[in-house]
């Protein structure tokens, strides 16, 4: 590789990267689109950390005690009280749809002071269906604890045995931490595959690549310039994703930033090779779209972009571990959340290396200028 070849690559990289930032559609798809997914997944995952119950409350009692009790339930974070339910029948229907977890019934005598007693009393009924056993039993013990607190205010009781929970804040992975690596994988696919398969057929249709082929520029020079451009734009896009993930969704990043950046570049280049092969081969958009879908969608779902691979049956985990995107997502996760170094993820790097060789041999073979 001499100086002139490098100059060719550099100028193509420079001007084509500038073009990305002038093109609002390209900017949306490289930066905006993954960010939207980040926000969607971030909000979905952050909600699951808090325990809450969707309940209906049927208060059949007129006492002020019961009214206070209900408004306390509604005021807290733990119970999401469904206000549409007014009788047991509609409550049953909603429970059977799992729209609500259980129904809390306060009978008509609830909270009244029985003759000869000094304080109010009553029994809460928790009604639930078969499909909600777990949350209902949690709900019962929760209400029980709440009533104990109230009881203590009326009767002085001694409690010899108690239990107290303590939360550890050490390095535990939230489900968001886990899915963030998958989101980065998704954004790598978006840029590396959907970018070239849209751009190349267009360039061919307009004869732009053909014109270039009358100059001495070589395919590998053109590829190198494209790779450098994708790596640069990809790193910018992913830096923004990291900034959002760290500041809004409390991502735990414990790894080395330089190793992460280097690994992301390797990942971008690997997946870009698939896009270059598809886009470089295709004569037009119609030819490439079905093939791209056959390759992209299985890879997207099996490599752990949207849900973790450990949920899959064993054999599928084995098969999917050999897909090119899997070691990339695993590697990102190991570096980010576990602070692993390159030396620890050699199996992933080895598999990626093998894929790079295979993918780029194909991409060079099938490339055509028109």
């Amino acid at each position, binding site marked *: 590789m001499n100086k002139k070849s490098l100059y*060719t690559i550099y*100028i*193509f990289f420079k001007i084509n990267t500038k073009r990305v930032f002038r093109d609002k559609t390209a900017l949306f798809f490289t930066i905006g689109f993954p960010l939207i997914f980040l926000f969607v997944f971030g909000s979905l995952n952050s909600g699951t950390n808090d325990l809450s119950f969707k309940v209906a409350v049927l208060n059949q009692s007129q006492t002020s005690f019961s009214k206070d009790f209900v408004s306390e339930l509604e005021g807290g974070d733990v119970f999401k009280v469904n206000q549409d339910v007014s009788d047991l029948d509609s409550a049953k229907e909603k429970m059977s749809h799992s729209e609500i977890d259980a129904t809390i019934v306060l009978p008509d005598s609830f909270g009244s002071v029985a003759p000869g007693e000094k304080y109010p009393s009553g029994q809460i009924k928790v009604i639930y269906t078969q499909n909600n056993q777990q949350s209902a039993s949690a709900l019962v013990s929760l209400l029980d604890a709440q009533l104990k607190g109230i009881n203590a205010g009326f009767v002085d009781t001694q409690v010899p045995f108690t239990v107290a929970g303590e939360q550890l804040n050490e390095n535990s992975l939230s489900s968001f931490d886990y899915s963030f690596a998958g989101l980065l994988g998704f954004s790598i696919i978006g840029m590396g595959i959907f970018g070239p398969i849209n751009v190349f057929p267009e360039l061919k249709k307009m*004869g732009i690549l053909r014109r270039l082929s*009358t*100059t*001495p*520029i070589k395919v590998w020079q053109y590829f190198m310039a494209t790779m450098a451009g994708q790596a640069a734009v990809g790193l910018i896009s992913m830096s923004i994703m990291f900034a959002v993930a760290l500041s809004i969704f409390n991502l735990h990043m414990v790894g080395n930033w330089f190793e992460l950046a280097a690994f992301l570049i390797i990942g971008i280049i690997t997946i870009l090779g698939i896009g270059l092969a598809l886009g470089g081969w295709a004569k037009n958009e119609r030819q490439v779209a079905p093939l791209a879908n056959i390759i992209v969608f299985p890879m997207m779902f099996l490599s752990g972009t949207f849900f973790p691979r450990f949920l899959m049956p064993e054999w599928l985990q084995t098969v999917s571990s050999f897909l090119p995107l899997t070691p990339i997502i695993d590697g990102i996760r190991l570096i980010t959340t576990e602070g692993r170094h390159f030396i620890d993820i050699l199996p992933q790097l080895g598999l990626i290396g093998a894929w790079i060789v295979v993918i780029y041999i194909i991409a060079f073979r099938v490339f055509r200028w028109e």
Partner: protein
Amino acid sequence: MTNMIEVRDLKKRYGDKQAVDGVSFSVKKGEIFGILGPNGAGKTTTLEMMETLRPIDSGTVIIDGVDVAKNPQKIKYMIGVQPQSPAFQDKTKLKEVIELFAAAYGEKVDVMKFLRDVDLEEKADSYYESLSGGQKQRLSITTALVHGPKVFFLDEPTTGLDPQARRHLWELIEDVRKRGISVIMTTHYMDEAEVLCDRIAVMDNGKIVAIDTPKNLIKQLLGRGFKKDQHVEQANLEDVFIDLTGKGLRDHS
């Protein structure tokens, strides 16, 4: 004058159609050579074989002593190509288009000089897509010359341009020839060929049916006893058009 280009018995077959069927001609240094013919005559295929874009079935093309089939990479440094409908990437400034193509040859050039050559210097910072048809053609011409080629190929350069833009382009092509560059062009316009070309090859069905200077070709036709309806006019409609609308270019929008 020595021959810059030697084409000998060039052939190309697509399926069962003999697109180019034994074409031979030579072009001198600094000559403007026109290839004329109806659509499908094989003009573009002939050019594309000479430009290294299509594999040659048989025959040879030698440009300044270099065999096109044997040394295509070397040929690419020696030729400039203006395709039939030139296009560049959008969102690219004109000066970047020049920079990009010079870089494709591994060269760094004075970008403004090349834009000035085709009267586009004030458009240097405009995007390619904002140009008019004539401006795009001019940009394409200067882009094809960034590396100082010895031969310049133009495929129907003035198709779709208004009379002013066409005349302007003729001047540019004349300028290219004055620099000692051999020009090979195809066209459907006879007036263009008559004004511009030193020699013409007329192609039909993949073969050259006549090859000579425009004057000689007309003389030969008259010698065969051809007679046109006699009404000698001192001007034609295009003269009227140019007289009414002037020669000035209209694309400075």
